[in-house]
């Protein structure tokens, strides 16, 4: 009975965790390997082997790099506009006297995040309309002439950043709030006694302690910016927007695969994009680790 029971004891955990590994093998690993095979091919119905020529095309494909550059612009906007505001809001919400109402405020900020990108896209398309949009009407009240947010190629990315600020500020506030729970009050108190100003306390005490969650937040932010699809696609009216100013890697990939039926090239695009994301993630981790070691 004992041998039987211990065999079952050894088998049980593997049975419990197997769903993940089976599902990932089918819906993750297999497509990843198959995608690599596809990316080495050429053709639509019958594939012929072409080696790495698709990859050479991707590297020389100005349109792909434009899409990556748009991702970079969105990432910079998110990192330097959205994250600082989120940190500021989280610091305000973390004040002890807000404690009871923290959940209520956080919910207000978080609701846009779980609202469908489609609904958000539809709302902002109206809000940002050049002629009858609320935002231009408000700007008109202070004498600013109408901006072609979605018609003028120079303004589409700022328009997208406005939308993203609204949709993604809340979740970043929540992440920062979670990180702030790890900042011991005693440390702040000690710094206060030593005569540190609020700015010094933020920079020298709070920020270093926030670094682990910052690594995560910045990574999410980069991945989200480069991986942008729905919001930009809907703002651009199921396309790339004026002068292709709203093309992102995913929308280009989608277009190549499902409008032009070029699965092989699209697979190569997916591979290059993934490798670049892993590289960016790796560089970012290194940078944050280096900073940790300096202190």
């Amino acid at each position, binding site marked *: 009975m004992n041998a039987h029971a211990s065999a*079952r004891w*050894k088998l049980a*955990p593997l049975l*419990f965790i197997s*769903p*993940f*590994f089976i*599902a990932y093998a089918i*819906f*993750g690993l*297999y*497509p*990843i390997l198959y*995608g690599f095979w*596809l990316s080495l091919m050429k053709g639509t119905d019958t594939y012929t082997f072409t080696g790495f020529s698709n990859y050479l095309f991707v590297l020389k494909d100005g349109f792909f790099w434009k899409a990556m550059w748009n991702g970079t612009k969105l990432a910079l906007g998110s990192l330097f506009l959205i994250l600082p505001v989120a940190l500021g*809001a989280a610091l*305000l919400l973390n*004040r002890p*006297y807000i*404690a009871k109402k923290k*959940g*209520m*405020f*956080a*919910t207000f*900020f978080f*609701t846009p995040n779980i*609202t*469908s990108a*489609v*609904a*958000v*896209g*539809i*709302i902002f398309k*109206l*809000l940002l309309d050049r002629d*009858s949009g*609320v935002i231009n*009407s408000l700007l008109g009240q202070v004498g600013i002439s109408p901006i072609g947010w979605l018609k003028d190629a120079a303004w589409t990315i700022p328009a997208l950043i406005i939308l993203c600020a609204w949709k993604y500020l*809340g979740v970043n506030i*929540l*992440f920062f*709030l979670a990180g702030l729970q*790890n900042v011991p*009050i005693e440390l702040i*108190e000690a710094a206060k006694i030593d005569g540190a100003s609020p700015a010094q306390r933020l920079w020298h005490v709070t920020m270093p302690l926030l670094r682990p969650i910052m690594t*995560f937040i910045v990574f999410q932010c980069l*991945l989200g910016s480069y*991986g942008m699809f*729905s919001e930009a696609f809907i703002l651009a009216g199921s396309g790339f927007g004026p002068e292709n100013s709203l093309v992102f890697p*995913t929308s280009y*990939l*989608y277009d190549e695969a499902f409008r032009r039926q070029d*699965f092989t090239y*699209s697979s190569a695009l*997916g*591979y290059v*994009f*993934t490798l670049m994301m892993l590289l960016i993630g790796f560089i970012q981790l290194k940078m944050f680790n280096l900073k940790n070691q300096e202190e």
Partner: protein
Amino acid sequence: MEKSAVAVNGRVVASQASTPIWRGTGRIVVYIVLILMSLLFLAPFLFMIGTAFKRYEDIVGDPLNPLPLHPSLANFSHLFDKLPFFAMLGNSLIIAVSLTALSIIFNALVAYGFSRYEFKFKHGLFVCMLATMMIPGQITLVPSFVMFRSFGMLDTFWPLILPGAVGAFGVFLIRQVMVAIPKEIYDSAKIDGCSELGTFFRIALPLSGSAVGIVGLLTFMGAWNDYLGPLIYLSSGSKMTLAVGLTTMVNPYKIDYASPITGALLMSVPVLVLLSIIGHKYFVDGLTAGSIKG
């Protein structure tokens, strides 16, 4: 735990050198900033609700007025005329509900395996699982499509349900709560003759209700709001989901402002209802608790 931190915090503030009047003013300023921010976050929702009930001429002619001065249901009837709205709603619901049910069961089963037992390569397997979160979905977009095509599953709900049934993030969130369940509870259940699967259903699953709830909610929202998936996999109008269906409402002759936003409003209703049923405290605390321990 959080309460004691606040209590300590309270003492710290009380011991501050600033005078009560200054402190009071500071607090009011903080409240005003937070309330203004909340209004800024609510405004687009209010705009959406207002616009859905406005007449066309008021939407174009008087955009700054958020209130529908001549409330009308014309946008709704227009929407229902132009789109098979309720069929789409049904499709979205079928996908979201079945995916949520599957993801709760499977994520919790895997989380149970990782939290209840000690076994060889456990740590390595867990790290492997987490590492899959680093790989962006773009890499599988095309090959998954080709795979599901060879399965004969195009224009069915399967490609939208199966891949999402279990994932590293869901397992991680539930495991965080399950590891905190004391071994003694399992042991006593075992003595009482409960099987391994029995302890899962009777002890582990109910005791990790908060994390399971969050995973369920996030899965539901993810499926309900998914845009790229249905866009790729569904082709016939009778199978279409709300998210994609609403964006197909483009009138070539007249810019149709109101109908899409009316649809957006109806599409957001389940989200807002779920959020208010589950309650903000539970939701926000659950999310932050999950990420703290990470």
